[in-house]
């Protein structure tokens, strides 16, 4: 219960600061401010996406390894089969983190949606 409260409070504080950062938009014209907030939201999305993915992956891999090691400790003869199953599970879980990483990097560096967003705001790129 205490742990959940701490996690909830941490998330709440993160959200609060994120909204403050978003509120500090430049006082320039509407279109450039819109483009600026698009990039701000893109950076925020990349960061939060990777953070959430790392959180889930950490919990998932931790649970998988915990259960596998317990199984091997109880029945060392089944070590081979348990190891292969754990390997498969870890690879599957890790691939999710890798996807999140690639998507975050694409959002940060490849800017796939820049042209349509800029066109919608009246810019020419």
């Amino acid at each position, binding site marked *: 219960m205490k742990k959940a409260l701490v996690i909830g409070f941490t998330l709440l504080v993160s959200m609060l600061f994120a909204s403050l950062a978003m509120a500090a938009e430049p006082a320039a014209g509407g279109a450039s401010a819109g483009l600026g907030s698009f990039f701000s939201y893109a950076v925020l999305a990349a960061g939060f996406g990777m953070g959430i993915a790392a959180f889930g992956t950490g919990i998932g891999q931790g649970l998988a390894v915990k259960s596998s090691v317990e199984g*091997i400790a109880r029945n*060392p003869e089944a*070590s081979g089969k348990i*190891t*292969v*199953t*754990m*390997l*498969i599970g*870890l*690879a*599957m879980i*890790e*691939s999710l983190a*890798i*996807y999140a*990483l*690639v998507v975050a*990097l*694409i959002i940060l*560096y*490849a800017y*796939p949606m820049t042209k349509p967003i800029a066109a919608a705001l009246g810019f020419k790129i």
Partner: protein
Amino acid sequence: MELLSPRRLKIANWVVLAILVAVGYLVSGREFALGVLVGGLLVVVNFHLLHRFLKGTLEKAQVDPESKGRTQAFFAAKQLLRFTGLVAVVFLLVRHGWVNVIGLVVGLSTVALTLTLLGLNEAMKIKNKEANPSHGTSHPLS
């Protein structure tokens, strides 16, 4: 041989990667196929390393239970190094746009795709075995 043995998994990974690269080349051209190849190589090599580290750690823990803490620390360090290396390579690839990013994502799906396909195959085998219990035995049950 068991279907889901590490050796089979590794061979299946390479086969699926070759198929994905060939299909990517035929459908979307050379640049896309290069992206698939690079992404696939990254995850397949990562899978090999993950297997090696896991095997080494578990074998060492069984042979020498005294050094449990040290083995765990080494495993964690190796895992971190492996993932950091992967992140660095993917970062450089995406940052400089050396490969097609969609191809890279498809290539990075190689291991997940292989494991899903092998899992489905195994599930089908079990289902068939349950539906037809005499299948695979030299003497029919009836």
